[in-house]
C-alpha cells in the first residue's frame, strides 16, 4: 500500500528532493511554500524537484546523499550536515553531532 502511494503521489525521497521538502514541512511550511524554498536554495525550478534525472546528478554534485550506493558520497549524518547548511536550517541530530564533536577539555 505504501509503495502504491509513493508511486502515485510521492515526491520520491532521496531519488529527488522529497527529504528536503519534508524537512521544510516539519517546520510548518505548506507544500507550495516548502517546494519553492527548496527550489530556490538548489537554484532549480519547482518542476525539477521531482525529476530524478535532474536531481540524481545535482545531489551528487552537492554531496547531500544519493539513492544508489556510491562509495565516497556523503552518507547519513555527513549528508545531513551539508543539507542543514544548504537549506539554512538546523537539523536536530546535526546540532547534536556538533555538540558532541566539540573539543574535549580535560580537567
Amino acid at each position, binding site marked *: 500500500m505504501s509503495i502504491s502511494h*509513493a508511486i502515485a503521489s510521492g515526491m520520491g525521497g532521496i531519488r529527488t528532493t522529497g527529504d528536503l521538502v519534508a524537512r521544510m514541512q516539519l517546520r510548518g511550511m505548506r507544500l507550495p511554500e516548502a517546494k519553492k524554498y527548496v527550489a530556490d536554495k538548489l537554484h532549480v525550478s519547482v518542476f525539477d524537484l521531482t525529476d530524478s534525472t535532474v536531481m540524481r546528478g545535482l545531489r551528487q554534485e552537492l554531496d547531500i546523499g544519493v539513492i544508489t550506493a556510491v562509495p565516497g558520497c556523503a552518507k547519513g549524518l555527513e549528508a545531513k550536515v551539508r543539507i542543514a547548511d544548504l537549506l539554512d536550517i538546523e537539523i536536530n541530530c546535526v546540532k547534536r553531532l556538533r555538540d558532541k564533536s566539540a573539543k574535549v577539555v580535560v580537567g
Partner: protein
Amino acid sequence: MILTRMGDGYTVEMTPDELRADLVAGSEDAARRGKVPLLEEAELDWLQDLFTGTSRVVGVERGHEAILTKDGSVNTLYSAQLSSGVGIPLAREQAFRVFERAFCFDSMEIGHPDYSFKPVKPIVALEATAVEGVLHGCIIPVFYGAMPNFGLYAQPDGPYANPADLLPRGEIQAARDVQLEIAETCRDDMLYVARHMADVGADGINFDTTASAGDAEFLATLQAVEELAATTDLGIEVGMAAECVLGFHGQLQYKGTRLAGLWPHQQVKVVEQAGAHIFGAVVNTNTRRSTPWNVARAVTFVKECSRVAEIPVHANVGMGVGGVPMFEVPPADVLTRASAAMVEVARADGL
C-alpha cells in the same frame, strides 16, 4: 460499463450516470455532516474522468507530487497482520533503510510493535537507541510514532475504571472524572517518550490515531503538543483516528473550542493552536458505499481542511480511510485513485 470497487474492496460495475450520482452523493454527505462546501462541477468532472479511466494505476500530474509521512512506522515490514505487517525478519533499522533506499519514502518512523505510548515508557531507552541508529545512518527525516491509545489505561488493561463500563450504568460524572485522570497520565507518558526522542535528536514525533477514545484523549494530546512545541525542536505531526471527534466526555474544551463533534477542518485549527507542524486528516470509509462515493466524500472534507489550514495537511489514505477500501490489502486501482484525488482535488500537502 465502468469497473470500480465498493468500500470493502469488492469489484462493482457502474454506468457513467451511476458513477456521477455516487460522486455527487458522497460530496453531499460530507457537506451535510461537516457543513463544508460541496465539490465544484469541474472537480466532479475530474473525479468522473479518474474513475472512468481504465488504467490500473494512476497518479498525480507531474509536478504536483506531495510529501509522504507514514503512520504505523516500519512495522509494515517486520510486524504481523495486526499492523498489516508482512513478517519479514528485518530489524527496524534495516526496515527504515528499505523505506529510504528502496521505496523512496520522503520521511519514515521508528515505532514500537504495539505502537502505543504506554508500553514504550519502560523501554524508552531501547526505542531511543533505534532512533539514534537511523539518525546516524539515514538521510530522510526520522519520526518516532505512537498512539495515545486511552484504551490501554482503563481496566482490564490498565489501572483506571473503564469509562465504557461506567457510562452504561449511568455513572456519567464518574466516567468524566476518570477520563480526566487518564488524560493526565497519558499526557505525561507522551511527554516522557517524546522528550527522550528529542534528546537523541529525532526530527519529529507523530501522535497517531489521536482521539480514538474521544475528546479527553484529544485534549491530552493537544496539551502534550503544546508543551513539546514550547520546549523542544521536534517537528510535531498529529494524525487523527476518525473524521469526527467523539464526545465521550462531552464537555471538554481546548482554548475555548469544544472538542466533541469537531470535523477535520475544525480539528486542524485546534491542532495549529497547540503548535503542531503537520495535521493528519482522517475521513472514514463506508464499506457499503462505492469507492467513488467514498473518495468524493473524503476529498470534500479534506479540501475544506486544506483550505483553512495554515500548516501542512497530510490526508490519511491507509486501509479504511481517505476513500481507500476497508480491506487489509487495498487494491492498487482504487488506492492510487484515492491517492491522486487527495492531492489534485483536496489539495493535500502530503499523505
